């Protein structure tokens, strides 16, 4: 059973098997073009595979939106060292719940995408890092892996093509920071998840110091379709420089929250009012978090835009991980800002002082505001402190905490008024 009804407005590419009977089974996968793309890729030169992915204009679906083909081209495939594939299934960006579905309903699509990436970078082992809370998904993916081994789609001589590849799951244990790719690498090495200095990038020195290709679940899941139908066909689904479709997780104040597959460049307001059925009670739209809690928040007046990376950048935000949070006119942005900051203060790994101390102080200031002790100067202080965090940390968590706060201070100033302590009046 699906968690939400699909919408007729969707373009179902990576989610095309969702809702099929036994969609996670190898039999269903094989009956619906499964592992054909791997066979096709095996006939191609590795450079051709990378070119095809570049042509598709696929960009990383984890949040950063880096061009996938370009990332693949950075892995030194002729290096004498072993190369590894790591799948980032540490989905934990608030607002995001799509990788769950890809692993639950179509794990073989992800596995086939991993195999194709392995051909492209000459890797022979891969690890799927799944967040600890997703234990049931570890079990589903383990079953899919076991089935693939049993039928010859993993292990020695994959699908009779002479290519060897081993794949394993690896459980996390609760840490947002481990979604950051270099912190994930430390975590998979058995350490605290703390970001590494870059360069060197993981493509050159990743897991255990070896060249490593890291992508999100949804990114790998898009690869079989790209190889099967061609990069150009996938690119044509989206807009220039952002090909294909993506799973948009719509949550918050909408009538039909859900995960919907929409082409890149889909109009944001249409996704809210038509795909997700609009706002309950006919209330007015106040704000949208376009791609997970790390993104600067948009005012309603800024939302009449297509959802693609460049347009979101133009309005000063990001498409992020596809977690779109819709807020109606009843939303108190100061309370929301506090909840976001409590999250980042909890999840900051503590490595960089601007992030560790910044998130803690921002949380304290926002807490005293929500508790009715806010001073007028606090509003400016929030903005100033946040801006001082920008660009001063090893990873993006510091910016991720600062950016939404800055947007609340700058765009929703009126929301602070009711949280300020009444001025003392001398009588």
């Amino acid at each position: 059973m699906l968690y939400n009804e699909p919408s007729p407005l969707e373009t179902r590419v990576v989610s095309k098997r969702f809702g099929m009977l036994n969609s996670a089974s190898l039999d269903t996968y094989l009956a619906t073009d499964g592992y054909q793309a791997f066979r096709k890729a095996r006939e191609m030169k590795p450079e051709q595979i990378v070119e095809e992915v570049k042509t598709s204009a696929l960009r990383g679906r984890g949040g950063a939106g880096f061009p996938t083909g370009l990332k693949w081209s950075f892995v030194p495939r002729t290096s004498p060292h072993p190369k590894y594939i790591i799948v980032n299934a540490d989905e934990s960006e608030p607002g995001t719940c799509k990788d769950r579905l890809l692993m639950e309903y179509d794990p073989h699509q992800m596995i086939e995408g991993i195999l194709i990436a392995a051909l492209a970078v000459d890797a022979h082992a891969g690890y799927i890092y799944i967040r600890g809370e997703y234990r049931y998904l570890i079990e589903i993916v383990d079953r899919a892996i076991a089935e693939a081994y049993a039928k010859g789609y993993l292990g020695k001589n994959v699908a009779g093509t002479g290519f060897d590849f081993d794949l394993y799951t690896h459980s996390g244990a609760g840490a947002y920071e481990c979604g950051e790719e270099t912190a994930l690498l430390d975590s998979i090495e058995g350490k605290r998840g703390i970001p590494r200095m870059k360069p060197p990038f993981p493509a050159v020195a990743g897991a255990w110091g070896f060249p490593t290709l890291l992508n999100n679940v949804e990114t790998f899941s898009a690869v079989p379709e790209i190889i099967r139908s061609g990069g150009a066909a996938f690119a044509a689904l989206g807009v220039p420089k952002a090909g294909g479709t993506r799973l948009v997780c719509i949550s918050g104040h909408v009538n039909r929250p859900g995960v919907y597959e929409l082409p890149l460049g889909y109009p944001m307001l249409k996704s809210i009012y038509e795909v997700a059925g609009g706002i309950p009670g006919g209330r007015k739209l106040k704000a949208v978090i376009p791609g997970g809690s790390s993104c600067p928040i948009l005012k309603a007046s800024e939302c009449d835009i297509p959802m693609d990376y460049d347009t979101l950048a133009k309005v000063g935000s990001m498409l992020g991980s596809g977690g779109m949070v819709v807020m109606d006119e009843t939303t108190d942005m100061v309370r929301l800002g506090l909840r976001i900051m409590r999250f980042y203060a909890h999840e900051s790994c503590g490595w960089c002082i601007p992030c560790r101390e910044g998130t803690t102080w921002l949380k304290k200031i926002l807490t005293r505001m929500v508790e009715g002790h806010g001073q007028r100067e606090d509003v400016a202080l929030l903005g100033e402190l946040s801006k001082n965090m920008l660009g001063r940390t090893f990873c993006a968590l510091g910016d991720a905490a600062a950016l939404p706060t800055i947007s609340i201070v700058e765009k929703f100033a009126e929301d602070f008024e009711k949280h300020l302590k009444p001025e003392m009046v001398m009588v």
Partner: protein
Amino acid sequence: MTFSPQLEERFAKMLSIYPPGRERSAVIPMLIYAQDEVGAVTRELVEEVARRCKVTPLQVDEVVGYYSMLHRKPSGKYHVQVCTNISCLLTGGEELYEHAKKKLGIGHKEVTPDGQFSLEEVECMGACSWAPAVEINYDFHHFVTPEKLDQLIEGLRSKH
């Protein structure tokens, strides 16, 4: 320390899947699966995992202190995790968490006197489009109302 045969089998596999000499990679998965069986990350468990993964107990301890799902004190038999992060906040997650505190008579990271239930306010667990969400042990529950939470808790209570 000995574990169930199933867990021993899992550990043997864990130690075999990483590159040679990289047993340390098994520390986190080993801790979380062992915690499920032992009930908490005990001193003895830290030392056992350290021995098996060929690291010092301190290297295991620093990991235990970092990951939020690892805990040194036992949770209840049913660990009720209520998300109050943004999507859940907007759809009643905070009210649900307040309700859970009253219903169970315990607060954040506390355990009921009979050891049956523990409660935790958690960060985003990846159920945003089906919020508010609760995870009890490893089972997800979506669109949870206070009434639905009562039914879930009563259902678990009646198992005894």
